[in-house]
């Protein structure tokens, strides 16, 4: 058997994957592009956001200007392709302008809660012990209330208004994100590569920065994306109840409320804000599903 090569430098026979070295995010992007449904949803959301941002330049009617004679015009009316609301305001304009507030209130609290909740959860999950107990038991207190009830209670206490809705919704979404972040982090914390990193003498902060965050952020991010639809519906709900956005601001939830009385007169018209909420939250949910599978490295 002396003929057998024994030096360690005989690795040329080992197979090397043919694929070019590719960054993680490039891989995620490549997988996303191959997923038509997710791309469609992303396109819809992007279109809604762009329309909301550029609404003043789209040549729409004034969303605040009503007309006593042109109230509750049906869909397809000349000059009002989506009809008019109970004060004769153009529905198309109000729906597009309404997207501004609705999307803002729907996304902002989740974005804020994403950062705060992830930070809390990662610290709780990585440090463990007493810190974990304090953070997680506090979070549990919030879980005792259904999220709708919690949002209503906080908003009610703070009073109506956009800023107060934002604050109350943020508070509602911190606990679930913290809980997911903690669970994911303590899972990663138990893996050997964290031990290997600690064994180099790296500080806790360095280990978290280099080894933990990159591996926990994507599941938390995907979870947070799925919360945006809930948040939008909650925001709309607050407006509907009159403790969120106040009239005459266009906002889908509020519009749904004010058009409620028209449901027997013109059901299609009064359903429009609901359709917008439904489509947007469906797109957000499908987008988060698509992200989840695209971010999965090991397949």
């Amino acid at each position, binding site marked *: 058997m002396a003929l057998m090569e024994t030096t*360690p430098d005989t690795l040329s026979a*080992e197979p090397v994957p043919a694929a070019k070295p590719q960054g993680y995010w490039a891989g995620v992007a490549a997988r996303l592009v191959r997923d038509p449904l997710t791309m469609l949803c992303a396109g819809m959301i992007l279109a809604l956001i762009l329309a909301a941002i550029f609404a003043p330049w789209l040549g729409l009617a004034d969303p605040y200007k009503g007309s006593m004679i042109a109230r509750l015009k049906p869909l397809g009316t000349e000059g009002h392709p989506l009809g008019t609301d109970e004060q004769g305001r153009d529905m198309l304009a109000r729906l597009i302008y309404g997207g501004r507030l609705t999307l803002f209130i729907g996304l902002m609290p989740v974005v804020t809660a994403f950062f705060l909740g992830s930070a809390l959860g990662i610290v709780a999950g990585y440090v463990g012990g007493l810190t974990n107990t304090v953070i997680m038991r506090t979070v549990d207190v919030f879980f005792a209330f259904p999220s709708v009830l919690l949002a209503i209670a906080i908003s009610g206490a703070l009073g109506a208004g956009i800023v107060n809705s934002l604050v109350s919704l943020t508070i509602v979404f911190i606990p679930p994100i913290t809980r997911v972040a903690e669970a994911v982090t303590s899972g990663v914390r138990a893996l050997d590569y964290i031990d*290997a990193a600690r064994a180099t*003498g790296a500080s806790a902060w360095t280990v978290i920065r280099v080894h933990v965050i990159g591996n926990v952020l994507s599941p938390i991010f995907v979870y947070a994306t799925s919360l945006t639809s809930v948040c939008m519906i909650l925001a709309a709900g607050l407006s509907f109840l009159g403790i969120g956005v106040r009239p005459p601001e266009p906002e889908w939830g509020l519009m749904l409320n004010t058009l409620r009385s028209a449901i027997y007169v013109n059901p299609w018209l009064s359903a429009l804000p609901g359709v917008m909420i439904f489509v947007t939250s469906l797109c957000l949910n499908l987008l988060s599903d698509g992200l989840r599978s695209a971010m999965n490295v090991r397949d």
Partner: protein
Amino acid sequence: MSAIDYAPSPDTGGPAQPLLIVRDLQKYFPVRGGILGRAQGRVQAVDGVNFEVKKGETLGIVGESGCGKSTTAKLLIGLTEKDRGEIIFDGKALGRELPLKDLRRGVQMVFQDSYATLNPRLTILDSVAFGARVQGLPNPESLARSMMDRVGLDPDRFAHRYPHELSGGQRQRVNIARALAMSPRLVVLDEAVSALDKSVEAQVLNLLSDLREEFGLTYIFISHDLNVVRYISDRILVMYLGEVVEVAPVDAIWERQAHPYTRSLFSAMPSMDPDNRTEEPPLAGDPPNPINPPAGCRFHTRCRHASGVCKTTVPTLAGLPLNAAHRVACHLHDATSGHPEAGQGVPA
């Protein structure tokens, strides 16, 4: 092959000073249960372990699951905090004289699961260079590249790959390169070749032998495979349920296993002879639960030589009369223990 700038921390104790002394090391893990999560018992993972590792030698640690060999490894490198005991690295005790960060410069570890020990999001180069960056060594990247080259991974081909693109053997080479990039003096190899295919295992063992010679390394080699431990080690330490039961030079223990447990462990090795297969299991049953280990000698519940004294008195680790370097913790070898077969040694 380019010369590698291997700069371990300087030797301070001289050649006679053991590189590592472990004294009375102990670690119990609480077992929590019930509604309030109160401690319901303690896993006595490592209980009063003593040993030394001389400079340049390789100490093999063997034992079955739950014997505490992996916990010992983690205690040595400070990944688990010890309850009690002393870890003395080149004459300096961890804690008072030697901060943890400095210990980790001198002691590195290679783990069993080559995949789980690599961050899936980091390139191979970043993983290997991480430690050098943390310790503030100059030129971490070029150091990492030359170390990759040394373990047989072409840096131009592998530096920017991710762990899932590599085979198990290649990943374990990455882990070795990462440990050595810190220029350690002692490397703890915790089942480092156990998960590899046999044909790849031999390649990695050859590599480990070469590196040991080239960089003057000291190894602690933990494994359940006696053949591998025998091949790579100078001395072998046998653990059972958190305690050291026997420690001896490899040839001495291969010649004669003094502790009944060591003997069973050796007889459980496959015979490799189709005409002379194992006919009787050396031991019955599984190792007991380390939560409530038996009193006295922990092995007495499975030992065919157990007598009254074994159930009550803990045997101490002492050198054999003929060979003081061959130490065993068994009443059979202590003429004063009161064991009826004492002084006769373990019958074959």
